C-alpha cells in the first residue's frame, strides 16, 4: 500500500512538471499553430536565469522576481529575432526553426555554463514528508507547490485577465483580432514571453531537484506526448494528460520494471501511452471540440 501511494505521489509530482512544460507548448500552439520544439531549452534557460539571478545575492522574493523578468525578456528577444521574421508564413516553417533554435541554445548554454553539472540552491524551508515508508523529499514537495502555483497563476491569467482574453482572441484569428484594433504582433511577443516564463518554472523545478546541466532540455521531449495526448490545444486536457503520463510512468518504474526486469522502460512509457491514446482517439483525449452550428 505504501508502495502504491508512493508511486502515485511521485507520479503526480512528476506529472505536474510535465504539465508546466506542456502548457508552455500549448500556449504557443494555440496562438500561432507553431509547435515549439525548443521548449526543453526554454526550461534550461529558466534554470540558468535563476542561477544567475541567485548569484546577485538579493533576497529570495526579489530573486524570483528578477528570474521571471529575465525569462520574460529572453522569450521576447527570442520571438523578435527568430519567430517574427517568419510571421505570416506556414507555421510549419516556424516549427522547423524552433528545432534549429533548440540546437543553437544548447550550444549557447554549453558555452555559458560549461558542461559540468551545477547545483541550484534555493534556501526554502524543509518540507519533507515522511509517513512510515512513504517519503517525499523537500524538493519534491516544493516542486509540487511550484507546479500548482505556476499552473494556477497561468490559468487565472489566461482565463480572467484582460491580456489573457486578448491572447485567446488573437489565438482564434489574427486578422479578426487585427481589425478590432488588437496589436497581434505585440500579443504574439507577449505569448512567447509568457511561454518562456512558464517553461522556466518547469526548468527551475527540474534543475533544483536534480542538477542544472546544459543539456537537461531533453525533458522537453516528454512534453510532446503530453501535449499530443491532451489534444494540442486544450489547457485542461494538458493538466490531466500530464498527470496521467506522470503516474503511468511512475507506476511502470515501481512495478512493471521490477516484474519484467526491463530497467529504464519508464522512459518509453509516455510514448507508448501516446501511441495507444492516438489509436483510440486520433484527436487526443481532450482535443478542443470544434464549435459547429448546424
Amino acid at each position, binding site marked *: 500500500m505504501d508502495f502504491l501511494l508512493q508511486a502515485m505521489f*511521485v507520479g503526480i509530482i512528476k506529472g505536474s512538471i510535465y504539465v508546466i512544460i506542456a502548457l508552455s507548448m500549448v500556449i504557443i500552439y494555440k496562438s500561432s499553430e507553431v509547435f515549439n520544439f525548443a521548449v526543453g531549452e526554454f526550461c534550461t534557460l529558466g534554470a540558468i536565469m535563476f542561477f544567475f539571478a541567485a548569484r546577485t545575492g538579493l533576497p529570495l522574493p526579489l530573486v524570483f522576481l528578477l528570474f521571471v523578468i529575465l525569462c520574460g525578456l529572453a522569450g521576447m528577444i527570442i520571438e523578435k529575432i527568430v519567430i517574427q521574421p517568419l510571421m505570416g508564413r506556414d507555421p510549419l516553417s516556424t516549427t522547423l526553426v524552433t528545432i534549429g533554435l533548440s540546437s543553437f541554445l544548447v550550444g549557447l548554454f554549453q558555452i555559458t555554463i*560549461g*558542461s*559540468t553539472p551545477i547545483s541550484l540552491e534555493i534556501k526554502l524551508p524543509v518540507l*519533507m514528508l515522511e509517513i512510515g*515508508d512513504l517519503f517525499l523529499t523537500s524538493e519534491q514537495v516544493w516542486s509540487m507547490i511550484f507546479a500548482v502555483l505556476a499552473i494556477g497563476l497561468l490559468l487565472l491569467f489566461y482565463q480572467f485577465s484582460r491580456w489573457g482574453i486578448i491572447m485567446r482572441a488573437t489565438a482564434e484569428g489574427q486578422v479578426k483580432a487585427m481589425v478590432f484594433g488588437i496589436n497581434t504582433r505585440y500579443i504574439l511577443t507577449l505569448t512567447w514571453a509568457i511561454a518562456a516564463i512558464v517553461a522556466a518554472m518547469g526548468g527551475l523545478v527540474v534543475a533544483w531537484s*536534480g*542538477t542544472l546541466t546544459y543539456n537537461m532540455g531533453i525533458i522537453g521531449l516528454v512534453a510532446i506526448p503530453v501535449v499530443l495526448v491532451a489534444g494540442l490545444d486544450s489547457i485542461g486536457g494538458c493538466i490531466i494528460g500530464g498527470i496521467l503520463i506522470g503516474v503511468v510512468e511512475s507506476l511502470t518504474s515501481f512495478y512493471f520494471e521490477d516484474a519484467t526486469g526491463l530497467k*529504464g522502460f519508464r*522512459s518509453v512509457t509516455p510514448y507508448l501511452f501516446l501511441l495507444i491514446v492516438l489509436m483510440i482517439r486520433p484527436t487526443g483525449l481532450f482535443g478542443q471540440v470544434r464549435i459547429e452550428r448546424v
Partner: protein
Amino acid sequence: MKNQKAFFILFALCFIIFSAWGSIAAEKSPVKLIGSAVLSGKVGALPSTGWGFMDAQDYINDNGGVNGRKFKVILEDNQYEIPEAISIFNRITAREPKDELFFHSSWQTGVLRSLAQKVKENHMIFIDGSMASNIFNEDVKKNYPYYFSCGVPYGKQCGMIFKYINENLHKKKKKPKLAFIYIDAAAGNDPLEKMRMYAKHFNFDLVLVEPVTFTTTDFTPTLMKIRRAKADYVILWSWSVPVSTRFLKTARPYLKNTKIFGLSYLAWELFFHTTGEAFDGVYVVSPYPRPSEINNPLVAAMNYYVKKKDRKIKVWDLYLQGFVMSLMASEGARRADNAGDLSRERIRDELENLKDWDAFGMYEGKTFNYASHQFPRARMLRADFKTKSLIPVTDWLVVDEYLK
C-alpha cells in the same frame, strides 16, 4: 641570363630549405602518445581531460623530455563515442611512424574491448582511464598484455569497501547488510561478479543489487527498497554526475541509518558543489592524491601548471588522469631508451617491471609497481562538507595485500 639568375636563386632557396629540414630531422625522434580525450559529446565537454595531457607534455619537455627526445601528445576529441575513438586510433596509427608513436590513452572500456585484437597485433601500449574488472584481472598479462590501467579495478574497490567496513565501521554482531546500486550499462555491470565474490569473502549479506539508468530522475523507489531491505551500507557505483547527485540528494534525508559508499568516480570534490551537504560523510575509494594535498610532489607539479596556465579545473581526477597517463608513458619510454631499445615491445616490458619506483612522488614516498597492470595503491576517504575536501581515513593501502 635573367632566367639563369632566377634559376640559381631558386636552387639556392631549395638548398637552404632542404638542409634546414635535414638538420631538424637529425634531432632525436620524438616520443608520441595519442590522447583520445572527451572534449565534447554526449557526456558533455570535459576540457580537463585535454588539459591534463597538454600540461603533462609541457612538464615532461620542461624537464628535459624523454632523454632529450620531445614528448608529444596527439590530442584528439573522441566525443565519448566508441566508433569515433576507434577511427582516431586507426587514423593516427596509420599516419605516425611506428618508432615514434608508442602510446594510446582514452577513457572507455568499450574501446579497449573493440581494439583488443588489433592492439595485440601492432603492440600499441594502452594506458587507459578505464578500470574495468573484466580486463584488469588476474589474466590481464595473458589476455591484454598491452593494456595498463590508470587506477584500481572497480571490483577491487568494492572489496576495499567491504574490508574497511568490517575493520572500522561494523560493530553489530549480525552480518553486515549491503545494497549495491549501479548504473545499468557496460561499466556498471563490470564489477558485479567480483563484487559478489568479495561480499562472500568478507562475509557480507548482499540484500539488494539494484540497477538504475542514466535517465532515472526519481530515486524514491530505489531508496524504499533499500530501506525495506534494512541495508546498513550502500555502495553507489555511478560515473554519471547527475545520477550520483540526484541519488545522494534524495538518499541523504531518507536513509538516516545507512552509510553510503562510492567508487573512485564518486571521489570527486565536484560533488561538494553539486550535492552540497548531502555529500558529507560519504565514504569513497580513490587511487589518486587530492588537490588539497599541496605537499604531495605530484600534486605540486600539477598545481604549478594549473596556476601558470590559469586552468579552471572542474574535475580534478580527469585532469590528473590525463597528466599521470602521460607521465607513466614518458617513464616507460625513458627506461626503454636507457636500455637502448626504444620500441613498443620494450616499453611494455619496462612498464610491467617497474618496481620500487616512487611514481613522481604520487604516494609520498611509498612505492609503485605496475606488475598487475593496475595502480597498486588506493585510499579510503571521507567527504567532509565543512572543509569541502575528501579526508583520507586510511593510509596508501597496497590493494592486493589489503584484500587478502
